[in-house]
């Protein structure tokens, strides 16, 4: 993409150097302890280009194919400017496929899909005061590495519904998000699980009254793996972040949540809440929940919690004692557990779409 653009060559070269220094993460890298990418990809082809597709764009949204030359100013201004970890560096250095979106006002929903194997990049820019709902889904195979940068301008609002249905793929996604003053970023993740799935969010609350609201569910049957890793940085004060992740793991599956919240020096009056819970449906399922707080400011409100368990015996008995058969009672309790996180989606139609995927994945996830 942008074959003759020096600015891009320079940014790519930096990314390539970073990746060369860091290498493909493996389980001895602390952040990748629960998701051994190196052994999962085992020599997969990095050079392939994952494909992207966009549904018709609503009024107020323009797109740019990142494989084309002559990128417009808004692409040059933002593309490759947000922080990149090892795999984000890899996708930035290697991707020859990608799409950029720019939103200039209150716009309707956009559907973005990634497919096939390989690397791809995305860039989503919301100008000041703009708003958008971005529905992202995948039909990937083999090994996919997708890096997306999201720039939320002042008082702009992005609702990001990211749906990853069950697949055999190894899929790594890195989302780097920067939220300006008064901006709101809401993300909801659905994970049906994959051979290995890792969705990593690096979120900077960069202006006062910026807010990030993350929620999601993983509904994993035998053999599935889903890793949600988040790092929210309260860079300035009067910023808020909430996280609510629920996981149901059956068979031999693994649900991972690693969430780090950093409140930087001087970021007083920051408010952060973080909850991760997992229900294990059998002896072979595993959940690794790791919420972390790093606080360098004095006057902050931070709460975090994590809990792993199986269905509550007392609740199950109560329902059965009232005549509800065991299988139905278990179903009710698991649904109620997941519903709390899905209810974070304000829009009813979107919520129902996500819930339909939950329903489809549940029967397998409830098997021990």
């Amino acid at each position, binding site marked *: 993409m942008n074959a003759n653009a020096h600015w891009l060559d320079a940014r790519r070269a930096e990314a390539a150097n970073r990746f060369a220094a860091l290498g493909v993460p493996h389980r001895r890298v602390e952040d990748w302890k629960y998701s051994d990418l190196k052994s999962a990809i085992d020599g997969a082809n990095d050079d392939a280009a994952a494909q992207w597709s966009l549904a018709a764009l609503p009024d107020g949204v323009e797109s740019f194919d990142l494989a084309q030359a002559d990128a417009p100013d808004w692409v040059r201004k933002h593309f490759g400017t947000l922080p990149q970890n090892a795999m984000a560096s890899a996708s930035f250095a290697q991707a020859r496929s990608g799409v950029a979106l720019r939103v200039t006002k209150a716009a309707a929903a956009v559907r973005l899909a990634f497919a096939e194997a390989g690397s791809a990049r995305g860039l989503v820019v919301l100008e000041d005061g703009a708003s958008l709902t971005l529905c992202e889904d995948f039909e990937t195979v083999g090994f996919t590495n997708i890096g997306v940068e999201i720039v939320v301008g002042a008082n702009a609002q992005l609702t990001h519904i990211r749906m990853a249905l069950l697949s055999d793929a190894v899929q790594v996604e890195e989302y780097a998000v920067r939220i300006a003053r008064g901006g709101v970023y809401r993300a909801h993740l659905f994970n049906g699980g994959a051979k290995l799935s890792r969705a990593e969010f690096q979120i900077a609350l960069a202006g006062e009254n910026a807010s990030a609201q993350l929620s999601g569910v993983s509904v994993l049957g035998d053999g599935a793996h889903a890793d949600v890793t988040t790092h929210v940085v309260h860079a300035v004060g009067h910023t808020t972040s909430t996280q609510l992740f629920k996981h149901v793991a059956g068979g031999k599956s693994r649900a991972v949540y690693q969430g780090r919240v950093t409140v930087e020096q001087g970021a007083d009056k920051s408010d952060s809440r973080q909850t991760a819970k997992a229900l294990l449906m059998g002896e072979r399922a595993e959940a690794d929940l790791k919420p972390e707080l790093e606080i360098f400011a004095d006057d902050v409100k931070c709460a975090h919690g994590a809990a792993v368990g199986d269905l*509550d*015996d*007392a*609740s199950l*008995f*109560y*329902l*059965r*004692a*009232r*005549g*509800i*058969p*065991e299988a*139905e*009672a278990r179903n*009710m*309790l698991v*649904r*109620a*557990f997941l*519903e*709390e996180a899905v209810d974070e989606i304000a829009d009813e139609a979107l919520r129902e779409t996500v819930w339909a995927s939950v329903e489809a994945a549940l029967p397998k996830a409830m098997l021990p």
Partner: protein
Amino acid sequence: MRTIMLEIKDLHVAVDGKEILKGLTLNIAAGQVHAIMGPNGSGKSTLSYVLAGRAGYDITSGTIRYNGENLAEMKPEDRAAKGVFLAMQYPVEIPGVTTLTFLKTALNAQRRARGEKEFDAMSVLKLVRGKAASLKVTEEMLKRALNVGFSGGEKKRLEILQMSLFEPKLAILDETDSGLDIDALKLVAEGVNTLRSPERAMLVITHYQRLLDYIVPDRIHVLAKGRIVAEGGKELAHELEAKGYEHIVGKAA
């Protein structure tokens, strides 16, 4: 001669390998209200849980027959469908399941198990509303998650609402009076009294005589250390209140 509905014979029950009930014998006929009184740790709640079929309460010997059937072999949901109801001492909070949805699901599950026609949502709502008002169960409570944020009194009133909705044959009330002030107690007792009928047996488990002033039993059994140590008519409650458990338990030992 009345038909015996619940027949417990020399029942021994262990929890985590520790024997709690040590040879309990008790018969209740249809139409009768029996009370079990006893100090803390006497095995009252164990008896209620073993009758409702909670896991972890192991019958090591003895029998429980309910309308001639072996109750111990039945799943909790089958017991409920056959008319056994336990109003629990600590009703469980279930976030994410609204009270009305729960009532509908439970009622229809019982009806399905009995081969009866299920109710649609509208019929259930009508039925529930008809019974809820007298127990001061509000519309707002019905919309909330089951027992979540309910006061002690609200939880107990909801238990009695369920009892009136499910119309059980054998109702066991486990310390329904605990945590209730006198007004709430009267309300709950009134709800229970309305359900007294010649076809229904009740077992009222309580620590205090107070509840039995409002739900007057036909027979009182005193449970201590896993056995029935004294039996009598309703006047026994007052004797216990006046002289204390030690007096009677001591005499029996």
